[in-house]
């Protein structure tokens, strides 16, 4: 900002070391304070790495049928064994991370965008608008998650984009409640009154004053929501409404035609489930740690999930 004649420079405060050093320092403090959260973060990084570099990590293609290798037990050549069609399970688990990461991030992005818009406006305006919106959220929430999502997926048909849409729209309701609560707390503050006195409009107040103050809440909701979204995607795929074959989704690998072969090849049932559990475990641990550090008031929120 240019200095006008006659105004004083704003007092300068000491800056923390900028750039990579600061980030490293913060990371180090996080690991010290929350070792479990750090483990969660590592699991999350591992999963994202698997998804991004699947082409390089996986020794085989996900739909490659290897001759003479039907239902081979885990060993040196096939680390996690092969399935009833002679496909390498390790490769499929690696590629499966792509589905989980894409659906997880896509759904959470959509859900938190909607939740932020609904939550902030509902909390900010209050009154009749708030009452109406909250009744719709009530109705939305009184459906069991899995029941609605099955019905929605039946409408949309299987496919990755549809899973993201369904999970995103559904996840918004619960998250919007939390953001609305945070907003109601924030608009009591004097700086909101001050902004209004200065003549700031509704949109300006919501964007410049309310939103920055709920970002911590949003980040926490997103991290915990990611675990939930990944679980939900796997459940949907398990029921046959997720990402269509042959593309490997961890949930789908546990269901369908492979189930009858699992008695002779139990490794088919073990690895995909372990992958889901570890991924969700990682996000939950990270989310918990972030919440404790950023906003302890949220403790106890976000316990909901689907099986």
């Amino acid at each position, binding site marked *: 900002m240019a200095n006008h004649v006659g105004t004083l420079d704003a007092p300068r405060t000491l800056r923390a070391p900028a750039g990579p050093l600061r980030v490293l320092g913060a990371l180090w403090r996080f690991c010290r304070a929350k070792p479990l959260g750090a483990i969660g973060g590592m699991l999350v990084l591992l999963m994202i790495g698997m998804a991004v570099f699947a082409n390089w990590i996986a020794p085989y293609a996900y739909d490659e049928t290897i001759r003479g290798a039907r239902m081979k037990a885990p060993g040196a050549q096939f680390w996690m064994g092969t399935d009833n069609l002679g496909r390498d399970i390790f490769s499929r688990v690696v590629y499966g991370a792509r589905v989980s990461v894409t659906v997880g991030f896509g759904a959470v992005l959509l859900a938190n965008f909607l939740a932020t818009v609904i939550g902030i406006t509902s909390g900010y305006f209050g009154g009749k608008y708030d009452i109406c919106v909250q*009744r719709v959220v009530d109705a939305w929430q*009184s459906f069991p998650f*899995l029941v609605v999502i099955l019905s929605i997926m039946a409408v949309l048909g299987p496919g990755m984009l549809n899973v993201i849409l369904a999970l995103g729209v559904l996840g918004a309701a619960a998250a919007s409640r939390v953001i609305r609560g945070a907003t109601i707390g924030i608009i009591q503050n004097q700086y909101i009154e001050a902004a209004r006195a200065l003549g700031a409009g509704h949109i300006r107040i919501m964007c410049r004053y309310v939103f920055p103050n709920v970002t911590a809440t949003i980040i926490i909701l997103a991290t915990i929501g990611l675990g939930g979204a990944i679980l939900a995607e796997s459940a949907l795929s398990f029921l046959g409404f997720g990402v269509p074959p042959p593309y490997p989704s961890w949930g789908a690998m*546990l269901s369908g035609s492979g189930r009858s072969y699992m008695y002779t090849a139990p490794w088919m049932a073990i690895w995909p*489930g372990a992958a889901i559990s570890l991924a969700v475990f990682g996000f939950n641990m990270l989310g918990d740690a972030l919440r404790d550090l950023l906003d302890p008031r949220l403790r106890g929120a976000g316990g909901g999930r689907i*099986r």
Partner: protein
Amino acid sequence: MKKYVLRRILVAIPSLLIASVIVFSLPRLLPGDVVQLMLEEKAYGKDLEELREKLGLNRPIYIQYWEWLGRVARGDLGESLWTRRPVVEELLRRLPVSMELGLLALFFAIVIALPIGVLAAVRQDSASDFIARSLAILGLSVPGFWIATLVVLLPAIWWGWSPPIQFTEFSKDKWAHISQFLLPAFILGIASAAAIMRLTRAMLLEVLRQDYVRTAWAKGLREAVVVSKHSLKNAIIPVVTVLGIQIAQILGGTVIFEQIFGLPGMGRFLFDAINQRDYPVIQGVNLIIVSVVVGMNLLVDAMYAFLDPRIRY
């Protein structure tokens, strides 16, 4: 108290109405024409138009909704498009199965969660607290359908034993009937147990730092009395609220668990109906499930007012 409950009921009505619109319109958006399907596979009528008229699908959608609501109010949920049997009749047969599974799962969840949650809070930051918390996060992370798959699979491989998949009626064999629910209900309850345990611990920790708890300690009361009588009673109130959400979660979970364990309940009914695009059945099951959830939430709210007389809405 009466006024509070009355108010809650009034608030629940618009929610139920909005829910009924959602219930009604969702299956109508299903891709693929059920009429086409029925004509091809079941040959119910001569041509598409005739069948459409027979099923009442040719009229405007808002008239269909209005008529449907009127019939629902009279306890008529229509008949299945496929089996031509009244939906209410089918539901009455299946509802008890799902309720049995759901209530048993809730029972397991509470019985596991409360003692562990209390222990973790009272012994905060001890080894047992650490283990309890890790187990809870694990319980929230491991998909129930995976545990269920392993529980069916592994014992069969190791010892040649597998849980019963054939459904036994209560009238035929009481013990076989109850025991077939134990395993699925337990696994279904795990995730809820984890959520309830975490909340119990968090709430109890908050209460244990209150002044009146310090007073109770100062009076020289035993730990058991301080924890159970002075602290838990106050900490349990938010936990009760969460039970409402958990009931909804558990009901949703029945869709998967009835599938895996071969229980003829509502969840499986819904799953089959979605696959067959059986509108009246999807609507019926959804409506019943929503009503159960809204009803349970009302019950929870009433309990809330009963537990905490300060609550006035």
